[in-house]
């Protein structure tokens, strides 16, 4: 098969991907045009776009995005780094694993949103409680994935390190961490994803800034265009985070044989 033919097929595939979004837009627009719903429930797609542009122009949107991102970043860094170190230590020491492992597993069973009221009572309603809440969300995927990665480094590689007299630091940086890396990266991805969900949750729960706050406030004023614009923005940011992590993953894990058929 010639290369140009293959390319044309891919082109067609990409077009197929636009069918559903297009249909949704058409249905949306016609529902508005036919006045099936009140304006409080559905506004035209273009209005949402205009609202988005307006919000961006006044700087409201940027400010809210920045304050959400700040929270996510601090919560994620706090939770993920704690999770990473604890997971690493648990993976290296079976005693520590038996000591704290069951407790952490039990804690994971608590739906973390249930902790929100408790955290507010303990830390107040301001920034600190949000960061703590997000860090709890970021902590669990990181601790489990790091632990799994570290304890899953094959025994044959550990043995090899012993044969070559590897001592702690070199052993950690050359054998254990690279071996655990795929799992750690999965942890980072889930951890960041949950952080993003938790920040929205925390902001919906009570806040004076952030994308989530923007949506709650708009809901109370029945401004559905802003709610939809907010939804669009959090989707785009979640999507971008995922893409960035995928790019990093590809670069860092070059050594891995990929089974996604792209090698062939």
């Amino acid at each position, binding site marked *: 098969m010639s290369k140009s033919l293959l390319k044309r097929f891919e082109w067609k595939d990409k077009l197929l991907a636009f069918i559903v979004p297009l249909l949704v837009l058409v249905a949306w627009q016609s529902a508005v045009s036919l006045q099936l719903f009140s304006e409080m429930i559905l506004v035209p797609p273009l209005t949402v776009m205009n609202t988005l542009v307006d919000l961006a122009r006044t700087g409201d949107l940027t400010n809210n995005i920045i304050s959400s991102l700040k929270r996510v970043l601090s919560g994620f860094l706090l939770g993920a780094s704690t999770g990473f170190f604890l997971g690493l230590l648990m993976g290296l020491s079976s005693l520590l694993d038996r000591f704290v492992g069951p407790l952490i597993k039990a804690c994971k069973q608590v739906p973390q949103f249930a902790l929100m009221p408790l955290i507010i009572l303990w830390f107040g309603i301001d920034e600190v409680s949000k960061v703590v809440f997000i860090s709890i969300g970021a902590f669990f995927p990181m601790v489990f994935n790091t632990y799994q990665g570290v304890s899953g480094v094959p025994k*044959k*590689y550990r*043995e*090899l390190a*012993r*044969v*070559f*007299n590897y001592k702690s630091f*070199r052993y950690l940086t*050359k*054998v254990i961490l*690279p*071996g655990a*890396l795929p799992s750690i990266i999965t942890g980072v991805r889930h951890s960041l994803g949950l952080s993003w969900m938790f920040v929205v949750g925390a902001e919906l729960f009570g806040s004076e800034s952030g994308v989530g706050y923007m949506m709650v406030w708009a809901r109370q004023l029945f401004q559905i265009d802003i709610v939809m614009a907010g939804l669009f923005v959090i989707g785009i940011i979640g999507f971008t985070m995922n893409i960035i992590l995928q790019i990093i993953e590809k670069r860092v894990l*070059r*050594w*891995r*044989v990929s089974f996604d058929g792209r090698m062939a």
Partner: protein
Amino acid sequence: MSIGKGILEIKNLSKSFIVDNNPLQVLNDINITIPPGNFVSIIGSSGCGKTTLLRIVLGLETNYEGDALIDGEQIEGPGINRGIVFQDHRLLPWLTVGENVAFGLDGKSRKETEVIVDEHLKLVGLNGFKSAYPCQLSGGMAQRAAIARALANKPEILLLDEPLGSLDAMTRMHMQKELERIWLFEKITMILVTHDVEEAIYLGDKVVIMSSRPGVIKKIIDIPFTRPRDRSSYEFMQIKSEILEEFHLGVEHPFIYSI
């Protein structure tokens, strides 16, 4: 290389494992001395403890009875005077071939490391693959890289644990030749564990035959032939059938003579 360094002496060596709370004797009263620069093949059916013996010499198995000495000193753990090539190449998938070969080099400058790596890649015939990743190598090539890694530390004794066991027959014969060439070049002791009789004879100055449950040395056969050896010569075939007879696999006569 100073001749006389790296004498391996094993005296009255026994080793047992605890399996289901019962001791299981794996090695019983092993005695053998291997002078520096020798090539010794150890052959035996599976479960005869040959790999355990190798792991004791390597220092991965401790708690044995008797003596395992290198230059008169008891083996208590792994050391860089002994190198190992495992059956699975055990190249770390996240390091390039060059980095894998440099894996055991410690405290050397960048330049020195480069020189050693290049030298050994050339020795095993892998120049040009320095920056490749292990997943890009064939089985034989990966095993060459593993040999280079083991040799980069200049060990006095190189232990080979069925290194060619997972290769196809043609690659295997080719790699046997390569091993011989490397051994002649490096002039170090090599101890090869294998279950391929022909390989044991082709490479060994001595062939140690072990039998199982518990593992004991049944016989040590000297191979007097000059190198390179001819696998199809009459003498070669005769020794092969002698060894096979030890495993009750012998054929009455290796050749049919006119009566």
